[in-house]
């Protein structure tokens, strides 16, 4: 019974913490750029404000447009509640393995791109086209890097993969390092951060994600923004789960979970600071250099896989 409680707690935490994570990231970025920043509560204030605002729809928006914010938000939250963050064996962790989890995010993206095309503005179509193209190229790289770990653990269930990492002795495994590098690159691309996309600008001709949201307002916009924050947190949690899970609680006890929470938060902060440093030090890529970036991630993870076979398993 207590595991059900912790499951709910964990899912709720992921959703409620997501705006804070986004706020933390932008604050760190601001500090790195010698600015003061708006504080880590700013995304929460934005979301609250948006929920209070009235929704204005375009005249000929179809039901897809109104339906999409709910699909995007729900699918993302569903994916986020599957990934174990604090407790290893949660009731929902078996409902979707890592492939199904990625597919849930793909479902959200599918509807997001459809909504971008629904109003019929040039910007919306542009955003949809780019988002779908680049995510399609990111998909094989993502699968490859997950595969490196999945083949070691003989499983795609995140819980089993985490257990495998926890129980094997610590070795220098270049394949894992390659997979981690690829995964970080993919995370940056999938969550729309610099150097792929700039989340802080509107009305830039190279924008991708924001272009699809231009017509949204009020609570619809709030849900969309919130979902993208949850997605950022989810990817960070996935990286923590797959590559550095030490500290996650294996039993549903209050002390264990509290300890896991503290460790998880520290790891999260570390990861976000790394991300912030990346974002501050890199310039945005030209749009048509993105395929090369994603190709690099694919080659990295494929080399990781081959090296895993050559060096670590021995054929």
């Amino acid at each position: 019974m207590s595991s059900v409680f912790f499951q709910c707690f964990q899912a709720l935490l992921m959703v409620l913490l997501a705006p804070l994570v986004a706020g933390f990231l932008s604050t760190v970025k601001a500090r790195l750029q010698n600015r003061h920043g708006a504080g880590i509560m700013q995304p929460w204030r934005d979301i609250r404000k948006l929920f209070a605002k009235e929704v204005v729809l375009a005249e000929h928006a179809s039901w897809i447009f109104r339906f999409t914010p709910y699909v995007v938000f729900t699918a993302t939250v569903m994916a986020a509640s599957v990934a174990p963050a604090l407790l290893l064996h949660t009731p929902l962790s078996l409902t979707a393995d890592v492939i199904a989890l990625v597919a849930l995010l793909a479902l959200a993206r599918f509807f997001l791109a459809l909504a971008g095309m629904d109003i019929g503005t040039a910007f919306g179509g542009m955003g949809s086209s780019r988002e779908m193209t680049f995510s399609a190229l990111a998909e094989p790289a993502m699968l490859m890097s997950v595969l490196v770990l999945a083949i070691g653990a003989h499983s795609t269930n995140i819980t089993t993969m985490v257990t495998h990492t926890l129980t094997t002795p610590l070795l220098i495994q270049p394949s894992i390092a390659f997979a981690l590098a690829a995964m970080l690159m993919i995370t940056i691309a999938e969550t729309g951060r610099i150097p792929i996309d700039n989340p802080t600008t509107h009305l830039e001709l190279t924008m991708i994600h924001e272009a699809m949201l231009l017509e949204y307002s009020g609570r619809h916009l709030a849900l969309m923004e919130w979902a993208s924050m949850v997605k950022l947190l989810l990817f960070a949690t996935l990286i923590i789960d797959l590559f550095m899970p030490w500290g996650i609680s294996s039993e549903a006890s209050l002390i264990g979970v509290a300890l896991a929470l503290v460790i998880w938060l520290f790891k999260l902060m570390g990861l976000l600071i790394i991300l912030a440093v990346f974002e501050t030090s890199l310039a945005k890529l030209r749009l048509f250099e993105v395929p090369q970036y994603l190709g690099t991630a694919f080659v990295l993870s494929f080399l990781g896989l081959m090296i895993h076979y050559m060096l670590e398993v021995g054929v």
Partner: protein
Amino acid sequence: MSASFAQQIIDGMAALTLLISFALLAQHRMLSVLHWFAAQGLLLAATAAVVAYSSGEHELYISAIMTFLLKGLLLPWMLWRVIRKLHVHREVEPLMNSGLTVIIAITVTLFAFHIIQPIEVTSDLMTRNSMAIATACVLLSMLMMITRKKAITQVIGFLAVENSLFFAAIGATNGMPLVVEIGIAFDVLIAALIFGLFFFQIRNTFDSMEIDTLNASLIHKDEDE
């Protein structure tokens, strides 16, 4: 340092060497090609040192130091000077598009793994795993020589082949005899010097560093005569 830990480090370095070979292939700017080449030299020196420490062969320390000085510092510095003087530091002009090059590179790597695997099993050295990777690196460096236009990148490719061979030697036999190694090192140095002289000479004569142009000029000369 326990044997298995040393082996892990060597494996890790082998993986990095392979990564650098791919990175060399994928670079766009002459200077970054050079940087990666220098990194490969440094990594090689470090690998030699680790193998020396763990296998207890002290001769390898000397070759590690030599590698460090020669391949990590001297050769890159010489090439850097050449590049600066000739003003060729802008774009590396590939003959093929990069996607195709990478696909060929992956295929070549697989081929190397496929060929070397049966040999590896027979070895009981702790560096045996890196044999296949060293072979792949040799092939990749050759690929780099094939796919680039500028003469300097071809020279770097040639030097990278030598680097990979050195790596293979460490992997296969814990290093060649010291005399042989010193000989090779000096050969490479002399070769690099001669290349450097040639670059300037070529530049003065033909006013270009592109292989195609050189060919064309030579052919013209033949016709003139």
